[in-house]
């Protein structure tokens, strides 16, 4: 039997998701301090990484196959892609399943993916805005040469992969949260996923190609490097067009897998949902 609320944005229902986005924005405005502190945290972790690599390079012009400006561009890129790709409000889903708060969403004529995605959109736009501001300040103060691609097609491929990665992360995060339908406990998986796999294998600390080849090969099979590492490699024009296209295809493949998985888990989970409390 099919549960019908899995749809993704039927065109005439746009206003409801726009209103949802508006409400999400208003929520952020209620918790301004919360948001400021979150930005502060992100900024500090960016600066830490930035100074770390600055110190490692010292007077060296090149290290591990990266020019100093390339590596620093990579680090700036991490900060930017964190706000574009690595962030989804669907982390709240786990808690909502536990507390029974999900009830207010499943009993409305709403598409569950569209619901979370419209909330994500606001989250991302706000974060992107402030990240650009912060990065702009740092780049101006330190006056280091930021790497811009030389070819126009690089921009197109970069944007394409970023969009795919954004959706890939969305469904990945949704899948992890949906596990709460069965475990009623989501933090362990989220921590393992969030810290070990995501940050490390995505290349959100350092470029993956500084690792041993055999490990790289394994990591490239996972969905994670397509979230941060490959988009930045494309930006830095360090991989061939063929490899870039391959990355896009693999990413799209993973996106398909996780979209499907998210759908299935949601349908099965919704059956399992206990609607606790009350």
């Amino acid at each position: 039997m099919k549960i019908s609320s899995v749809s993704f944005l039927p065109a005439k229902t746009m206003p409801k998701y726009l209103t949802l986005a508006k409400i999400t924005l208003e929520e952020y405005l209620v918790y301004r301090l919360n948001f400021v502190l979150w930005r502060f945290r992100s900024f500090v972790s960016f600066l830490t990484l930035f100074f770390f690599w600055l110190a490692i390079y010292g007077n060296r012009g090149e290290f591990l196959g990266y020019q100093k400006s390339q590596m620093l561009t990579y680090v700036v890129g991490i900060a930017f892609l964190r706000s574009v790709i690595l962030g989804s409000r669907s982390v709240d889903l786990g808690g909502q399943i536990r507390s029974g708060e999900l009830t207010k969403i499943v009993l409305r004529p709403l598409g569950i993916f569209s619901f979370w995605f419209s909330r994500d959109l606001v989250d991302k736009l706000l974060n992107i805005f402030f990240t650009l501001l912060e990065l702009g300040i740092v780049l101006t103060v330190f006056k280091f040469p930021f790497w811009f691609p030389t070819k126009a097609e690089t921009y197109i491929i970069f944007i394409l992969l970023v969009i795919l990665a954004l959706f890939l992360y969305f469904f990945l995060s949704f899948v992890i949260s949906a596990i709460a339908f069965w475990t009623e406990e989501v933090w362990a998986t989220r921590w393992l996923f969030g810290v070990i796999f995501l940050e490390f294998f995505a290349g959100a600390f350092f470029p993956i190609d500084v690792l041993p080849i055999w490990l790289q090969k394994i990591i490239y099979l996972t969905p994670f490097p397509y979230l941060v590492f490959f988009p930045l490699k494309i930006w830095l024009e360090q991989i061939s067009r063929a490899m870039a296209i391959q990355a896009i295809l693999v990413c799209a493949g993973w996106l398909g897998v996780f979209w499907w998985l998210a759908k299935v888990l949601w349908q099965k989970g919704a059956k399992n949902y206990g609607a606790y409390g009350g």
Partner: protein
Amino acid sequence: MNSSVVEVKRLKKFFQVHKKEPGLVGSIKSLVARQYEEVRAVDDVSFTIEEGELVGFIGPNGAGKTTTLKCLSGLLYPTAGFISVLGFLPHQRKSEFLRQISLVMGQKNQLWWDLPPLETFQLNKEIYEIPEEKYKETLNELITLLEVEDILKIQVRKLSLGQRMKCELIAALLHSPKVLFLDEPTIGLDVVMQKKMRDFIKEYNRRYKATILLTSHYMGDVKELCRRVLIIDKGKLVFDGQLSEITQKYADHKLISLILAKEVDQKILNDLAKVKEFSYPKLVYQVKKDEVSKIAAKVLDQLPVADLNIEEPPIEDIIRELFTGKNYA
């Protein structure tokens, strides 16, 4: 052909609950070998509800009332049995179905906690695709009925329980649902507020011909609102019928209450029949149905009676007796 709005046939909903002994040792034990227990929250329940009916659902805590409501609204997937609401299978949660129902839970908040209620209303307007004109009209009507003009722009978390419940109701009713499930709508409200809620529910039922199924701990709610009641206990439906029938069916006694004209020795009173209550000048006897006239005559003959009434026992008492281990004949 069946025109019932709600149709439930042999509904069962069982939960697997894992048991854990208290304390750390219990936690470790349950980690190694989990013990599951099957809880039969709803066990073979059948009933139908017609359009426009206002039905009360009563039973002690954990009887399965809320679980049944959750199954009816599509929140829970039934273990077995058949449910049809407005011709839909609720658990499929089709948009056309969800657009015509509402579930309000007294203990649950469905408003957006950090924002004023008006925001939730506007979101619901979009979610349910309510036309602007209709939205304004309904909202104004509900606001006036429930007297909440001044709190619409205050953050929900700063509202009192009563204010919040009123707003919950408004949010649930904006799309004019044909079927309304109310789970403990008056819980935690003071007497004045309870009364207002009841009046409102009654009025809503009358005005819109909405079908309403409500659960409550308070007999008052049910007595005042519902002609028909469903009584559920330990997952089983034990009574389905008019409220007045409960008394006839289950009460094996009546009450003779009198006002004494002057004080009488308690011993004499006790000799006549079973005294249920005595505080001078009021005296209440509990008497078997078939002995009522005999004892009433005796009482009038032997006691200085200023006033005498023969009454049915209060419905609360009958139901309490029902729930405390009596057989449902």
